[in-house]
């Protein structure tokens, strides 16, 4: 009699136990985690500042560890240090920008650590420039770079799918 009642109670309890089906959720999570982990492994070499909007292009070359010149709407920064303002560049008539050149030479001379030394030795420079910068500013920057010995110049862009 006692066992009989227990069996009935157990049966009722089993019927009431509702279960969440987590299988599909787990599938989604697993796929997401793998996707994000793979994405994560492609470490970004370049990190553009918030205020700079890079143009888009269809080129596929990956950035390398190089010297970085950032051109925002107001300032030129060489390896993260503000060097000259865009207004100054527009005002000057010189083709070579003295402050930038000094900073480039300084970077070359004062390298600390293997990583920055390798960067300075490559003679490569990447220019991250805002979309609306007039070309004459970039032209002066580029000729300054070549004069300072950084002869391989690359322009950073955001990758897009197709031409349109």
């Amino acid at each position, binding site marked *: 009699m006692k066992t009989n009642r227990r069996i009935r109670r157990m049966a009722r309890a089993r019927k009431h136990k509702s279960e969440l089906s987590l299988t599909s959720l*787990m599938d989604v999570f697993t796929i997401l985690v793998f996707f994000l982990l793979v994405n994560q492994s492609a470490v970004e070499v370049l990190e553009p500042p918030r205020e700079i909007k890079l143009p888009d292009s269809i080129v596929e070359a990956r950035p390398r560890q190089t010297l970085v010149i950032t051109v925002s709407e107001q300032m030129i920064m060489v390896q993260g240090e503000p060097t000259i303002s865009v207004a100054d560049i527009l005002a000057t008539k010189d083709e070579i920008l003295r402050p930038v050149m000094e900073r480039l030479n300084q970077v070359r001379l004062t390298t600390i650590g293997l990583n920055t030394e390798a960067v300075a030795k490559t003679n490569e420079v990447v220019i991250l420039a805002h979309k609306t910068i007039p070309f004459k500013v*970039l032209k002066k920057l580029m000729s300054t770079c070549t004069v300072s010995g950084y002869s391989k110049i690359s322009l950073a862009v955001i990758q897009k799918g197709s031409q349109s």
Partner: protein
Amino acid sequence: MSRPKRRKRQEEEAELNITTFLNLMVVLIPFLLVTAVFSRITIMELDLPTSASGTASNKPAFAIEVMIRKTRLEVGDGRRVLVTIPKTGPKYDLRKLSEALLTIKKSHGDKEDATILVEPDIEYDDVIHVMDAVRLIEVKQPDSELTQKISLFPAISIGDAP
């Protein structure tokens, strides 16, 4: 009595305890989503002449030059202008530029380099788009949705427009 009972227990569905795994996922996914970078940065390498002066001594007879002017694009061969492409509205007609370059590419198949000459007040964005158009052309296949990419002049140099 006891034998059928045991069989019943074995028939019961074996369940994995996935709570810990779920906890891990719940933590990992927001973390990875926050740190994920969806816009990918690539670089466009320029093929600049090695000396800063830019006057090569043995200049080749044929050089493709694309001039970006305020109102139009011009394609030249180093001596004269071959094609002039006016702006369509506020934008440059890059499609026409690519097509003009494709006809040049067909007659000079081994040529890889081109020079883009830019007027001083042109925006950087336009320069990049023109460089894209000079680099390659996307041709739509007539029988399918796919586009075929044809490389035009990938070694691009840049300079001032005369």
